[in-house]
């Protein structure tokens, strides 16, 4: 290791201003601080409120994401082998390995494209490369369906980084969560790649062409897909595919985006985030409260079968848990004031359930709810701060 340090010290002058490779200063800095702990903390940008270096924040989030990611890899194999094909003799390791090989290319593509663009912009602007993309690059694969074509992942990542982040000035300046923007981009640009029943399980779309022997009556529908289908066919009750139960949904043995299925794994991540103080518990708690409140309200109305879904079901199906823990709490795009965080989180929960129930065309409401509230967060903060100013002025006058 010492040799490497000496080597870096030796070539460092080449990368300083006016040096032989001055153009690549940002790239050099990024790799140096990736290999060694930097001796500076983040000075400016949105993270000025924090004494921590941005890098450490990002590392904690990555660690928190790991349980969901690892379970997601296993589940990709499990859904393919054991549920869709009906095999019973595959081991956990075999399923995991199958999923690992499916998910790894998506992760690689997201990182290569995203970091490539970040490095490019850092060089153009003569800035240091920011660590912001380390988390986005892992979030993007986790909210993709496993069979999403890689070139679509690449285009969406490029769109998210350029339009979502660089256009606004880079990490910490973005209005919308870049990872969700990538997903929304695919949702509207290439809807067949990310909606319907057949994209959530590996190989299902070309099952007949590739000779996959599916279990009879297997559709690959997610619980939300089941609910929407029951609604549009006018059925009396929702027929959950493969007769899964809420306990399966909680553990995550259901089809869905790679990282979103297991509420349990996400809860582990939530504990890590809250324990280290990186994620805001205010947002998570109020988001769950909002979802339950809206779900409860719909239960009271009870006009159709979607409204009759028990409120707590909403918390464990679809992307609600993942969005609550990892997306809504993004420190850049969330509300910054404490009271604002309660409002922000609560409304995300409300809008998510509202979209799911009232618009079966968009069975997953979490993405749209968070993006919408991202846009509203500055407004919420503004009124919270103004309210505070008013209250204190009043108090000052009363005391004077």
């Amino acid at each position, binding site marked *: 290791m010492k040799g490497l340090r000496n080597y870096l010290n030796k070539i460092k002058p080449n990368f300083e201003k006016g040096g032989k490779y001055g153009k690549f200063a940002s790239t050099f800095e990024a790799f140096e601080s990736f290999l060694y702990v930097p001796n500076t903390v983040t000075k400016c940008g949105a993270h000025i409120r924090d004494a921590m270096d941005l890098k450490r924040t990002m590392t904690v989030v990555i660690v928190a994401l790991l349980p969901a990611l690892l379970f997601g890899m296993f589940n990709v194999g499990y859904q393919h082998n054991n549920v869709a094909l009906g095999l019973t003799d595959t081991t956990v390791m075999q399923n995991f390995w199958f999923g690992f090989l499916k998910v790894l290319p998506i992760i690689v593509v997201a990182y290569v494209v995203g970091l490539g663009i970040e490095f490019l912009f850092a060089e153009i602007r003569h800035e240091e490369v920011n660590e912001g993309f380390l988390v986005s690059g892992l979030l993007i694969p986790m909210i993709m369906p496993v069979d999403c*074509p890689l*070139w*679509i992942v690449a*285009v969406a990542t490029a769109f998210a980084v350029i*339009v979502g982040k660089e*256009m606004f000035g880079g990490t910490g300046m973005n209005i919308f969560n870049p990872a969700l923007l990538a997903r929304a981009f695919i949702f509207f*640009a*290439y*809807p*067949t790649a990310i909606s319907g029943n057949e994209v959530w399980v590996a190989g299902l779309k070309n099952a007949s062409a590739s000779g996959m022997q599916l279990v009879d009556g297997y559709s690959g529908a997610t619980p939300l897909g089941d609910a929407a289908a029951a609604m549009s066919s006018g059925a009396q009750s929702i027929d959950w595919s493969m007769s899964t139960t809420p306990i399966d949904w909680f553990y995550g043995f259901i089809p869905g985006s790679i990282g979103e299925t297991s509420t349990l794994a996400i809860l582990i991540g939530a504990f890590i985030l809250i324990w280290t103080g990186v994620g805001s518990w205010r947002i998570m708690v109020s988001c769950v409260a909002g979802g339950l409140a809206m779900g409860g309200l719909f239960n009271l109305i009870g006009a159709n079968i979607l409204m009759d879904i028990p409120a707590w079901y909403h918390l464990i199906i679809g992307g609600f848990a993942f969005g609550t823990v990892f997306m809504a709490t993004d420190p850049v795009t969330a509300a910054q004031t404490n009271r604002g965080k309660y409002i922000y989180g609560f409304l995300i929960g409300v809008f998510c359930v509202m979209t799911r129930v009232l618009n079966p065309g968009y069975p997953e409401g979490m993405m749209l709810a968070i993006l919408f509230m991202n846009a509203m967060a500055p407004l919420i903060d503004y009124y919270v701060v103004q309210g505070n100013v008013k209250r204190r002025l009043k108090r000052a006058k009363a005391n004077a």
Partner: protein
Amino acid sequence: MSTKEKEPLFSAKNMGTLMGPLGRNNPILVQVLGICSALAVTAKMKPAFVMALSVTVVTAFSNLLISLMRKGIPSRIRIIVQLVVVAALVILVDQVLKAFVYDISKQLSVYVGLIITNCIIMGRLEAFAMGNRPWPSFLDGIGNGLGYGLILLIVAFFRELLGSGTLWGYQVIPQSLYDHGYANNGLMILPPMALIIVGIIIWIHRSRNKELQEK
């Protein structure tokens, strides 16, 4: 203003009036005018081109006419007079389109009529034609119409190419690419993407013209 010296028709100043809106002073990129129709008609290049041409004709001739009448217009009712001129020209353009390019006229539907409300036209009348002689006003109208049309065509180029795989109605993305899993980008067909593309063009424009950047 009593000097009777003849200014050459294409003096440097007049050329500046004509060419400025194409680049540094673009009505869409700098003044952010005329955005609504830029969103509405840019899904395909052909309608965008016809729209650009129509707006250019209307701005040029309304500028010319108003400039000719500018000394006789009472300033209190000038907006009404301007609107009458613009409306008459728009109806003319609309009839011509209906007569000669009926299909495209149907595609553009209400947006031809809505040229009346295009802020670029009223903006140029108020800002330029009311205070300048007819010839420079005419050039200013053409320049602004073309500057508007240029952006329309750039936006339409990307939207049609990526959204439909065609240019000017002809297939340009080969079928073999589709067979390999390529798909048209559905977002490009939707109006929000036009706004995003205009945003990207403005971004590039500002980073090249530093004096436009707000501090």
